[in-house]
């Protein structure tokens, strides 16, 4: 009986992890590319330069291909709390449901309605109103990000609520919406989005520059991408590291796991790389490279601050919550943190190198950089996945930190057979979608940007009155 229960929770977790990570492949690009396309269209509106209109339509096509799959996989997110996690849903709905409902009302209607108008409104709206529609879409995507991160942050650090009659109840919506954790998560995610958008625009532009195609058009796009990427990648590192410091206050266990820090250290050194040392029975790595004091600085913001280890925290939480294992899986948290941080640093280098080459007018000739930029389009996606692995696995064994355990939150009536079927369906469906998406994105990323003439605008069907 026990083993069966474990299996259904595991399957439900596997499904949530795969569908959420998959969904989040498309989200940051939408968050970043929408405002970039809006900026391109604004540049065209202000200057009348054809190149900006062509870029708007070119990157607009990539945005739409990506947006479609983001919307489609987002539906699954909205449904699967209730489908797979009915105990969780009944327990948290009074708090967690509110930001979800508000997200729909405030953000989804806005982005969906105005995206439709943007696609089909080129020759039916005045240039100014049409420009407003893409900015409203951008506002919608960012609002959506805010509300869903408020909901997720409440799972990490429950505020503005209390537990009554065995269910979480909202007591102060203001505390929920302005939770320090949520503000950090939102800021970090928006920087991630902008970074993703900028690096994709940069990578695609550099591909065209490397081929010597449409150089005059894509030089502008590369410049815009670099102007955005430099502050975005640097800001992201700063926000990300202060987010980690803040998380140490709320989820010391997560930070200890992310550093594979078994015993409390003062000062604490940062492990750059290690082999072994990831489990209770094997706490000492067989090989590691450490930087003294660095973890103290990152986690506490002081030179010699104390960072608590997994073992004492485990004892402490057992005292607080009763017997049980309160340590999250250490290895995925450790590597999640490192993949995210190292790629984050690499992206800063790419942005700085590109900006310097552009300033010294050597960008188009620096072939090594053009191809690096093409490869670097993958970095923000991988880093974002790694970040979510850290965030969500680092929260275990809790589904809502300190209130409800993941192992007690799944739907009791959903059998492992049912879960197996749905997991299989999602693998097949999402796999197919990924292939088609990549094929289409590649094809459209390699096309020449559409002409500025409105008659060649593909999405508008034949019109007559």
């Amino acid at each position: 009986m026990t083993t069966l229960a474990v299996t259904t929770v595991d399957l439900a977790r596997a499904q949530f992890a795969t569908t959420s990570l998959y969904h989040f492949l498309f989200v940051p690009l939408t968050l970043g590319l929408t405002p970039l396309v809006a900026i391109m269209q604004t540049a065209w509106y202000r200057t009348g330069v054809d190149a900006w209109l062509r870029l708007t339509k070119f990157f607009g096509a990539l945005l739409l291909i990506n947006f479609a799959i983001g919307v489609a996989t987002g539906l699954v997110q909205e449904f699967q709390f209730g489908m797979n996690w009915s105990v969780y849903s009944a327990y948290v709905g009074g708090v967690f449901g509110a930001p979800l409902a508000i997200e729909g009302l405030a953000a989804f209607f806005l982005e969906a309605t105005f995206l439709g108008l943007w696609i089909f409104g080129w020759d039916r709206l005045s240039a100014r109103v049409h420009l407003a529609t893409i900015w409203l879409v951008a506002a919608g995507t960012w609002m959506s990000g805010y509300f869903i991160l408020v909901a997720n942050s409440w799972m990490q650090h429950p505020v503005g609520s209390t537990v009554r009659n065995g269910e979480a109840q909202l007591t102060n919506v203001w505390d929920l919406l302005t939770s320090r954790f949520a503000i950090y998560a939102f800021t970090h995610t928006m920087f991630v989005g902008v970074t993703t958008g900028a690096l994709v625009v940069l990578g695609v532009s550099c591909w065209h520059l490397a081929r010597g195609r449409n150089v005059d058009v894509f030089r502008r796009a590369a410049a815009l991408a670099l102007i955005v990427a430099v502050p975005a990648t640097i800001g992201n590192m700063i926000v990300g590291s202060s987010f980690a410091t803040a998380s140490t206050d709320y989820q010391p266990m997560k930070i200890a796991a992310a550093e594979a820090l078994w015993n409390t250290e003062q000062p604490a050194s940062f492990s750059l790389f290690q082999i072994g040392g990831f489990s209770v029975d094997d706490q000492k790595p067989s090989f590691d490279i450490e930087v003294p004091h660095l973890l103290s600085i990152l986690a506490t913001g002081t030179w010699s601050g104390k960072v608590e280890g997994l073992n004492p925290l485990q004892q402490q939480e057992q005292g607080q919550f009763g017997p049980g294992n309160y340590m999250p899986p250490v290895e995925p948290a450790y590597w999640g943190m490192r993949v995210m941080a190292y790629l984050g640093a690499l992206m800063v280098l790419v942005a700085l190198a590109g900006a310097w080459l552009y300033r010294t007018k050597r960008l188009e000739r620096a072939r090594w950089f053009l191809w690096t930029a093409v490869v670097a389009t993958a970095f923000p996606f991988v880093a974002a996945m790694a970040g979510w692995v850290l965030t969500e696995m680092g929260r275990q064994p809790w589904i809502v930190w300190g209130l409800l355990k993941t192992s007690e939150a799944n739907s009791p009536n959903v059998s492992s057979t049912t879960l197996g079927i749905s997991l299989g369906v999602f693998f097949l469906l999402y796999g197919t979608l990924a292939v088609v998406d990549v094929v289409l994105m590649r094809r459209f990323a390699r096309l020449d940007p559409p002409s500025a003439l409105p008659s060649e605008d593909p999405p508008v069907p034949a019109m007559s009155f």
Partner: protein
Amino acid sequence: MTLATVWFCLIGFLWAGYFLLEGFDFGVGMLLPWVGRDEEDRNAMLGTIGPVWDGNEVWLVVATGATFAAFPAWYATMFSALYLALLLILVCLIVRVVSFEWRERSASPRARTAWQWANTVGSVGAPFLWGVALANLLHGLPLDDKGVFTGTFLDLFSGYTVLAGLATVLLFALHGATFLTLRTHGELGARAGAAARRLSVPAVVVVAAFLAWTVAVAVDGNERGVAGPLVPAVLGAVAVVACAVLVRSGRVGWAFVATGVAAVATVATLFTGLYPRVLVSDPGFANSLTVTGAATEHYALTVITVVGAVLLPVVLLYQGWTYHVLRARLAGGG
């Protein structure tokens, strides 16, 4: 009226909005292979809903989110009980969502045809299953005393719930046909009108039968007085009959209004039949979830009420404005 009742009505309103709006775009998707003769026809047909289907689908997402926020227990039991049906709905909706953009972007005729069929299959499958799913809320699902579903996937299918699925599909097909008649012209518009005329007869029979059966289920199975569900049921039945007459006299605008009224009245019949419960348990009627029992606490309800009162009118305004901007008729090929 308590806030919980307000939210029950509001969720009914959101479902009605979903049926009214996505109803016709599902209908257009269903009719693609039959009303559209060539690529240009199908481009024009999809062009009528291209700008609006995504906004229409948000009504469903918001109905779901509102249920989660206002009635956590209802959301939890309904979504876990309807598991496999919802999985199928998700597959239908996902392939349909991507088909719009990806058909447009596909170069080969084969890929375009494949995405067109993905749209059509999704447009038939999702409404059928939503009909089955919503009818089950009233018809009853086996729940234990903790509100946990104890049945299987096959328990979702009975004569009544399958009829609900068929009625939803036929109603949406007719709604889509009247919409197309209104939004297209030339030969395409004429074929859409012919489809509306042909569809109207089976729609009258099936929808009226479903509405009558719903009133019977509400009275017998849910201890409802007959008056509540009967009023919208009669309105719905009259609306489909009116549509059948109107499409034959060429009054396309009014025919579309009639199918819209029928879509809204169908949801209203189900929801008035359901009140004061949100999910009937059968067997074990005492385990049914009620509006009061499933509702969240007053404070959270107040918060979302304030937000909803501010935002919903704004949403209605700009969605309405979108339809106004995009009101021009489209023509097909040949």
